[in-house]
């Protein structure tokens, strides 16, 4: 029943606009109704909703997966060379004097002492340390048979490297057979050798039970062990490795060329400083100390490289997804012209119509974001499982991705919503439906 109408003139004290406002109902759309309208619209045709959202689902999934995989892979790369590099410190003598062949008989000997490995071993944080030097053997060739076979090649140019026993630990030596030489061998200057796998193959030495002899020129060496692998200083793999002590006596090695130190994780910086002092107390700054790169730097550079590339890919797929939503929403605005007219007749304002379509596309986007995030995380987990990686994901990602989806839906819905709100109710009602 119509309410009794009070003419504006009778509201003496009220401004005219106020009296009209009090007499006239204002159109109103509650958030709950907006929400339920959007829900009904999206769930009425679930297959269509899903197809509309597909582009955005894939886009968000791609984004989440690439971010997650970049993080996971970056972490993986870092943890690999972290572990090896972060625990390696190398000390070398000053460049000019070490490399000047005419300075051989001068002060240079004092740069790195022969007992460098033992001295560093005493430092807290050092796991193992040993010296390592290339030995010059002139043109002498290595062979494993005393007599030269004129038919087959049995003599080879094989590098000879002198080490202190501690070096085997410092490069994480794995033995294939036999053993490495010890301090006793070194101090006595015994003519023993350990072969890298490459050298052993060329010299055709496979067993060391009887300490088989090899020859470098006219020098005889007893092979006590064969290496399987080393984690550092891979040139050892192709070399004949002899004790420092023997190299000094037989090949006139003047001084160690470097000290390889394996330190505990996190101790590199500290040991770097202490090592120079321990080895050259009078002139520590003369020694060159190589420290591993800071792990943090490595990580961030790897991540940003990978991320930049994949983010572009994810962004492109999101754009495609947004166009998909915009496209279908626009089509549905045209399809639902009759509904728009009806809603206007039922009291919707232009804003209400726009809000409804915006809300629908935003909800669609959020839904797509949610599904895409799940899909992306599944991908990260699946790839990680396949590669035996540890999946790593930024904690904010699963929360931000649906928001990104909603934002995309909102953006994509803007033009269709505007189009819907601009539809004249009369024209819309003329449409059947």
């Amino acid at each position, binding site marked *: *029943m*119509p309410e009794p109408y009070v003419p504006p003139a009778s509201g003496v004290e009220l401004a005219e606009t106020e009296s009209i406002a009090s007499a006239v*109902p204002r159109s109103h759309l509650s958030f709950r109704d907006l929400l339920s309208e959007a829900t009904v619209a999206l769930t009425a045709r679930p297959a269509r909703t899903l197809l509309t959202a597909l582009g955005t689902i894939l886009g968000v999934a791609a984004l989440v997966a690439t971010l997650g995989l970049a993080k996971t892979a970056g972490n993986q790369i870092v943890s690999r060379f972290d572990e090896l590099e972060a625990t390696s410190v190398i000390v070398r003598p000053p460049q000019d004097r070490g490399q000047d062949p005419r300075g051989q008989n001068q002060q240079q000997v004092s740069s790195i002492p022969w007992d460098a490995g033992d001295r560093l071993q005493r430092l807290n944080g050092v796991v193992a340390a040993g010296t390592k030097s290339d030995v010059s053997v002139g043109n002498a060739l290595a062979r494993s048979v005393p007599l030269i076979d004129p038919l087959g090649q049995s003599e080879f140019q094989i590098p000879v490297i002198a080490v202190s026993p501690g070096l085997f630990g410092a490069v994480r030596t794995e033995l294939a057979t036999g053993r490495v030489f010890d301090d006793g061998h070194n101090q006595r200057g015994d003519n023993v050798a350990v072969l890298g796998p490459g050298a052993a193959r060329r010299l055709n030495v496979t067993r060391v039970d009887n300490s088989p002899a090899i020859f470098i020129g006219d020098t005889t060496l007893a092979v006590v062990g064969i290496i399987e692998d080393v984690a550092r200083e891979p040139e050892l793999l192709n070399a004949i490795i002899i004790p420092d002590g023997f190299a000094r006596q037989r090949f006139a090695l003047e001084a160690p060329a470097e000290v390889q130190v394996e330190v505990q994780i996190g101790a590199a910086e500290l040991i770097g400083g202490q090592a120079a002092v321990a080895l050259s107390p009078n002139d520590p700054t003369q020694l060159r100390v190589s420290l591993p790169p800071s792990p943090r730097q490595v990580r961030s550079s790897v991540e940003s490289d990978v991320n930049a590339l994949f983010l572009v890919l994810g962004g492109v797929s999101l754009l495609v997804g947004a166009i998909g939503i915009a496209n279908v929403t626009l089509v549905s605005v045209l399809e639902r012209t009759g509904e728009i007219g*009806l*809603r206007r007749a*039922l009291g919707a304002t232009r804003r209400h119509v726009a809000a409804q379509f915006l809300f629908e596309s935003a909800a669609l986007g959020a839904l797509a974001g949610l599904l895409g995030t799940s899909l992306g995380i599944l991908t990260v987990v699946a790839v990680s499982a396949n590669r035996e990686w540890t999946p790593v994901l930024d904690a904010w990602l699963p929360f931000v991705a649906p928001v990104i989806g909603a934002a995309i839906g909102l953006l994509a819905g803007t033009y269709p919503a505007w189009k819907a709100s601009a539809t004249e109710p009369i024209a819309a009602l003329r449409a059947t439906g």
Partner: protein
Amino acid sequence: MANAAGPAPVVELERVARVFPGTPPVEALKATDLVIHEGDYIAIVGPSGSGKSTLLHILGLLDQPSAGIYRIDGIDTQELGERERAGVRSARIGFVFQSFHLLNHRSTIENVMLAEIYRPGSRAKRRDRAIEALEQVGLGHRLTSFPTTLSGGERQRVAVARALVGEPSLLLADEPTGNLDSGTSAQILDLFDDLHAEGLTLAVITHDGDVSARAKRQVRIRDGVVTPVTAGAEHA
């Protein structure tokens, strides 16, 4: 009806005209005076293109007159903003269209409940009011059916129920039986008779003589000019 001190006017048109701009401009509705009182049942008849829908759109606040004054329940519609016009539409006017305009993916009751979402007020009783309206049109047993499973006459009755929710001041129907056969048309017209008997104010646009014959008052419209058919007092 001849008595000026009778029921309050629901609709008052004073020299209302509608010109569609163009070359040449179309004068779809020429200066029209029309009063519809509370409880009236008026039929607007006229040939195609005569301006029936134009008049109905103005009455329904879906369109604005180019000239003249339109008051509904005494409210001068010229002074209203978009939100108030929409509010009046929602609260005081019920529409029934030739093509029903039901949402196919919603059940009967949801279609009827849609009438109230743009109104301020409680959601709590919305369902009850929708059920009541559907019972009023004789569809209390089809609450959860979908429009696609209903006959044309049933669909139009759902649309009438939607127009009735919240007790509008005026029910506007544009060719309500245009898509129905004569049997189902009669059902809708019977329903209109009942609603009229209960005191509802109705304005029905039609080509159909059977439809207009049911109304208590008829106005004829030709080339945008409105003239009363049944003798009755018109208050300017």
